[in-house]
Every structure is written in structure tokens, then in C-alpha cells.
């Protein structure tokens, strides 16, 4: 047994941190709050593609690096720390979905996605006031070699730069993922606006046509692929939340050491230091749960939901607590636009309710426990 990052993983982590440090600046996130969704420059994205990040956890047979899912989560966490947009999580997630599918077309699409030829996003959530792919009601009808999709998807990530979407639909009473091109007839993309300035859209689908080749991996185990994909995506967003938690704690901890009031660093007052200790506990527990979720996904992908929900529920709360503590303990300066505290808070709050909030995930666990 071994429940730690391997030396290889630690080396990758260092390299990723270094890349972000050199190439990314959180001011881009601040500016995006006024000027529309945040964009990763083509140059940075190209580097990411070239470093092979997108396929890092894709199986070797499909052209990826075949590393543990944990490695992708680790990258998502590093991204969260520096407020890198979660387009990275989107890219990992669609790569994962495509990797799970058997048909020849998806292999080509996966290659395009990993090599930056096409960017594939995915559309799952609907405006029914609740979470989870189970409540998916967007209907696809199939007649012969093709069919149409009608419905609305919301909270679709990175639609601006997507060439196509994997759309979760109901098809013959079972779930399916169908590929829809961004310029498909009948598809309207409307920008939504999220408090963290990240790209998020709604897709209106009005009799959008598709061919049977566009159905990922047949319809046989599509429900399972969809669910696994959702679990993986949720885990990546949890990793991002862990990064936000870590960064909020680190910023506040540093500030508490240098900020003087009453002739002492404020970190010497227990009102400050004990609250930070609680955040530290939340972070350590959160990291442990994230590792547990990654391991469950890797080894037991069709029964991993309790561990995934545990990580998402805990980290949704932990990131909110850590960023609110950061704001409060920074005092007035923490409440200003200039400091990154509110950027972290915005991302924490956005991701806390993305792909299921804490209450939703605790409900899943409640159902699991009580059988």
C-alpha cells in the first residue's frame, strides 16, 4: 500500500507550478470580471497541448500518457491555486469521456482534442433546478441513421472556444452522449455570466440533427460512461476547490505573519490563528478525501460515487470557509477589488454549486449509507 504522491507525480507537480508561475497572472481573472469571460491566450493553450497535459490520464492505447487520474486532478489543483481557468478540467473531462468509448470516430476526435486541433466541451446540466446527469430530460429521437435533439443545456463550460460538444441526452430510454458541432443548425449558444468570470453558456437545441456516428460508444453502456464522466469531472472540480482552499490559506497565513496590529503580528491572536488552524484541518481532510476519490475512480469506476461525493461535499464547504476566512482575516483590505481574495472567493462559490452542491452530494451519500 502507498497513499502518497509518487516521485514522478511530485516532479510533474513542480513543473506545472513553475509553468503557471511563469505564464499565468491572476490579474487576467480580475479584468475578466468587467470584460466578459476569461480567455486563455492561444499561446498558453498551445504550450499546454504541446506538453501533453490534455491526454495525461488518457490510456496509452488511445494516444495518451496513461498516468493515474490523480495526476490530472493534481494539475487541476495547481490550476485552482493560481486561478487558472477550469478549461483544463473541461479538457480532461472530455478526453476521459472519449477515452472510455470504443467507436473509431471518437478515437479520431480524441486525437484532435489532445493535439489541439479541436476543442471538445460537454453539455450535461439542465435548467430544472437540480443537479446530476440522472435528471437529464433533453430528448434525442433516432430514425434510421440519424436523428434530432431538442432541449436546453445550461452551465456549459468554455463554449466560446469549443468546436463541438458532447451533449448528454435521453435516447431510447437510456442516457447517451452525442457529438454536436458548435455550428450545427438549430444550435444557439448564449453566454451566461458567472461571478468568477469564467466562460459558461447555455445551449438551445432546436431539432439539431445528428447522425448515428455521432453517438459515443454506442448506446449500450452510455449511462455508465456518462456517469463515470460526471464523477471524474466532479473530482476535477473538487481538486480545483482544494487548490483554491490551499491558496486562500497560504495567502492569509502569510498576511497574518506580517500584518501588525496592537504591536504584534495578527497571527499571534488566537481569533486569527485558531481559525486558520481550522482551515488547515479542513484542507488536510479535503486533500485526503480527494486522493480517496481519485483512487476509487481509478480502481472501481462504477462504484466510486460515495468517495467522489465525499470529496465534492467536503471541498465545496472547505473552499467557502477558507475564502471567507481569508476575506474576514484580511479585514478591510481583503474586501477590496485589488486583492485576489475575492477572486478566490468567487471561484470557490462558483464551483461549490457546480456539478452538485454539498447538500446534493450528502444526499447521494445518505442514499448509499442507508442502502
Amino acid at each position, binding site marked *: 500500500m502507498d497513499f502518497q504522491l509518487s516521485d514522478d507525480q511530485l516532479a510533474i507537480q513542480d513543473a506545472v507550478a513553475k509553468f503557471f508561475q511563469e505564464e499565468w497572472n491572476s490579474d487576467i481573472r480580475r479584468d475578466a*470580471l468587467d470584460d466578459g469571460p476569461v480567455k486563455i491566450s492561444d499561446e498558453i493553450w498551445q504550450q499546454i497541448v504541446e506538453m501533453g497535459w490534455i491526454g495525461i490520464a488518457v490510456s496509452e492505447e488511445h494516444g495518451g500518457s496513461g498516468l493515474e487520474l490523480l495526476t490530472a486532478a493534481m494539475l487541476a489543483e495547481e490550476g485552482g491555486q493560481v486561478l487558472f481557468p477550469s478549461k483544463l478540467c473541461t479538457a480532461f473531462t472530455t478526453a476521459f469521456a472519449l477515452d472510455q468509448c470504443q467507436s473509431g470516430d471518437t478515437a479520431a476526435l480524441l486525437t484532435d482534442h489532445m493535439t489541439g486541433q479541436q476543442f471538445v466541451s460537454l453539455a450535461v446540466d439542465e435548467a430544472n*433546478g437540480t*443537479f446530476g446527469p440522472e435528471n437529464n430530460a433533453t430528448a434525442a429521437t433516432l430514425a434510421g441513421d440519424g436523428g434530432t435533439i431538442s432541449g436546453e443545456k445550461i452551465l456549459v463550460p468554455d463554449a466560446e472556444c469549443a468546436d463541438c460538444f458532447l451533449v448528454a441526452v435521453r435516447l431510447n430510454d437510456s442516457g447517451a452522449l452525442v457529438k454536436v458541432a458548435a455550428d450545427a443548425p438549430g444550435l444557439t449558444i448564449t453566454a451566461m*455570466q458567472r461571478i468568477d468570470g469564467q466562460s459558461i453558456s447555455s445551449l438551445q437545441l432546436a431539432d439539431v440533427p445528428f447522425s448515428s456516428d455521432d453517438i459515443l460508444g454506442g448506446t449500450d453502456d452510455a449511462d455508465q460512461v456518462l456517469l463515470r464522466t460526471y464523477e471524474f469531472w466532479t473530482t476535477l472540480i473538487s481538486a480545483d476547490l482544494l487548490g483554491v482552499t490551499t491558496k486562500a490559506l497560504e495567502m492569509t497565513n502569510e498576511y497574518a505573519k506580517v500584518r501588525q496590529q496592537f504591536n504584534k503580528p495578527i497571527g499571534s491572536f488566537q481569533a486569527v490563528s485558531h481559525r486558520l488552524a481550522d482551515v488547515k484541518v479542513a484542507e488536510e481532510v479535503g486533500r485526503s478525501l480527494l486522493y480517496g476519490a481519485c483512487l476509487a475512480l481509478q480502481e472501481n469506476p462504477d462504484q466510486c460515487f460515495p468517495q467522489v461525493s465525499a470529496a465534492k461535499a467536503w471541498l465545496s464547504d472547505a473552499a467557502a470557509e477558507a475564502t471567507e476566512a481569508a476575506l*474576514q482575516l484580511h479585514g478591510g483590505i481583503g474586501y477590496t477589488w485589488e486583492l485576489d481574495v475575492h477572486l478566490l472567493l468567487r471561484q470557490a462559490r462558483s464551483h461549490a*454549486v457546480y456539478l452538485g452542491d454539498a447538500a446534493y452530494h450528502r444526499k447521494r451519500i445518505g442514499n448509499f449509507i442507508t442502502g
Partner: protein
Amino acid sequence: MDLKFSEQDEAYRKKLLDWLASSGELISRTMQGTDDSGERNPMQAMRDWQKHLYEAGYVGMSWPKIYGGYEASLTEQVIANEELARAKIPPSLNTVGLTIVAPTMIQHGSEEQKQKYLKRILRAEDIWCQGFSEPGAGSDLASLKTNAVLDGDNFVVNGQKVWTSAGHIADMCVLLVRTNRDAPKREGITYLLADMKSEGITIRPLRNAGGGSHFNEVFFDDVKIPKENMVGELHGGWAIARSTLDNERSGLSGVVALEANFKRLLQLTESASIGGEPAIEDAHTRDQLAQYWIEIEGLKYLGYRTLSEQLKGQKPGSQASVGKLFASKLRQAMAKNALEIVGPYAALTKKSPHVMDRGRWVAGYFDSLGYGIGGGTSEIMHNVIAERVLELPRSVED
């Protein structure tokens, strides 16, 4: 013990409500921000509104008549406080002037200062801002560094203030400055009144976490302030400022605001759904709503107790700190709970498709976070309760 109002009180209430009903036109003009000629001029509209309110007897209610006040009874003040808050009239432009500057001046100012400024505060002829906090002096206010040197008939002031609400529209500023660097920190502070149009004052708006700009930084560069604008004694400013900080409001208007928040939250639970069911049927949500109802009820009765003490002529204790700490926690809890109820849509801005209630809940959440910092952080409120109410030894050195 009773909470009944006398017939006379009820007559007073009726008069107020009649007056409010007859003021509809001015209220809507103020809300629209137009002056009496229909031109857009929000500042003038607000000034006009406050003057109207004052002339009807609802500003300066507790003040001595000789300075333009009404010496109204406390029960009348309670009625006015509740009814005005309930009626959602335009907010006052001049909070600092009315709640900080005027009480200080009445208690510590010279007769000339009182004559010169008090009536202008009542009529919103002077808008005031507060120059207390500095980048290095927040919770530890007494460590402030903005420097003033007496040179002939003027103080010459250099330094920087921060978190100055309304700084960009204010006519005047109450200012704490250091006049003696060698004395212990609380014994070298002087209380001044600064004209915001003085040469050498630069105002820079500060944007807040929610994206709004209510605060400012104010820079002082060789600003001259006449000696007669000193309140109290030279180096005696700390005690004056401290008495002002203690002079907090009863908090009943805060209760009315919380009641309005609660009502909106209840409406939200009727329109939103949790896990596919109406939120109002969700057991956890019902439990939370009940808890907020209890806490608002508690805060209201706490306010009545404080007021009753004042009615009997007792000085309000540090119950104001209890109320502030409790109210800011409650406000934050309600704001966070609203986000839980809004669920998948909780992180959308007011401009987004699918946003609920035009983004009220996210905006309210950001606002709620400010309540634990502004006007004394929750940590400082804890200290105040521990030290002044429980009489525990100080946890911070002076």
C-alpha cells in the same frame, strides 16, 4: 412589561404615515435622482429629501431644540425608526454627519462649532465623511499615523485615510490625526474638522470585492486646517472618538431590515426548488427559516430591552456590540442559506440568463461579508464584549 403604545403614540404614528403618504412624489423623485426641475441630479434630490424629512420632524429627533433638534420622546423615536425603515424611503446621504459627527459635537464641540455645523447637518447642507482608519491602523485604530503640526493658526496635515465612505461626495470630514508622536499612542491624537475642498486633499475611490465603489482613500498633502476646527483639547482626540464609537444606534432599524430580508428569503423558498421539490418543503430549509425567525425575534426583543433602559434614562450598555455581532452573523447566515436554496443558479451574475431574482442573492452575499468587517470587525466585537461586558482581562495590548 408591555409593548403597547399609548393613544398619543398611535396618533403620532398616524400623523407620520399620513405625512409619508403625502410625500410620495418627492420620494419617487429622490429614487429617480432628479431635482425639482426634472433634471438628473441625484445628490440634490437626496439633499432635498433629507431637508423635507427634517422639516417634518423626523431628523434630529433626539437633539436639543437649541441646535435645531426636536427633543422627541424615545417612544416617538421608536415609532419613527420602525415606520421609516418599513416604508423603504430613500437612504440618508448623511449617516456619518447624523450619527457620528453631530453626537460628538453636541457632547464635545465648542458653541461656535455647534452653531456653525449642526443645523447644516440636519438639512443635509453639509455631507460629512469619516477620516479615522488608515492602511496601518484598522482594528488598532489608535496606532494611526496621519500627522498634524500646529503652524500659527493652522494645523498642517499629512497622511492617508482609508475606507472613507462617501468621501467623494462629502463637504466635510471628521479627522483623527497624530499631534504628538512621543506620547503613548492614545495620548497624542487630536480630533479635527476638515473642509473637503481644502487644497492638498486627493480622493481616490476604492472598488470593493463585490465590484461597487463605496469607499475611498483620502490623501492629505500639507492640508491646512484652521485651529478653531479642533474639537476638544489638543491631544485629547482619542477619548472623544471613543465616546462616538460607543454611541451606537439601538439597532431596531437593523431588525426591520432583517425582517424584510427574511420575507424575501421566504418568498424565495416558495419559488425555488431543491432536489426537484419546492424549497419550502425541504426539511433543512424549514429548520433554517425557523432559526432565522427566532434570531430576528430575539434581536427585536433585545432592541426593546435596550430602548426600555434608555427610556428609564440609563446609558445603553455594551448591548450594542452584542447586537452588532449577532446581527452580522445572522445576516451572513441568511445570505449563505439563500445561495444554498438558489442552488445551481447561485453563482450567476445579475446580467446572466437563468439568474434568479436579478442576482439579488449573490449581491446580498457579498454585502453580508462586509458587515463582519465594517464598523469594527467581528473579532473586535468579541473583544469588546469580553472586555467591557464580561470584564475579562484584555487580550490585546494597548
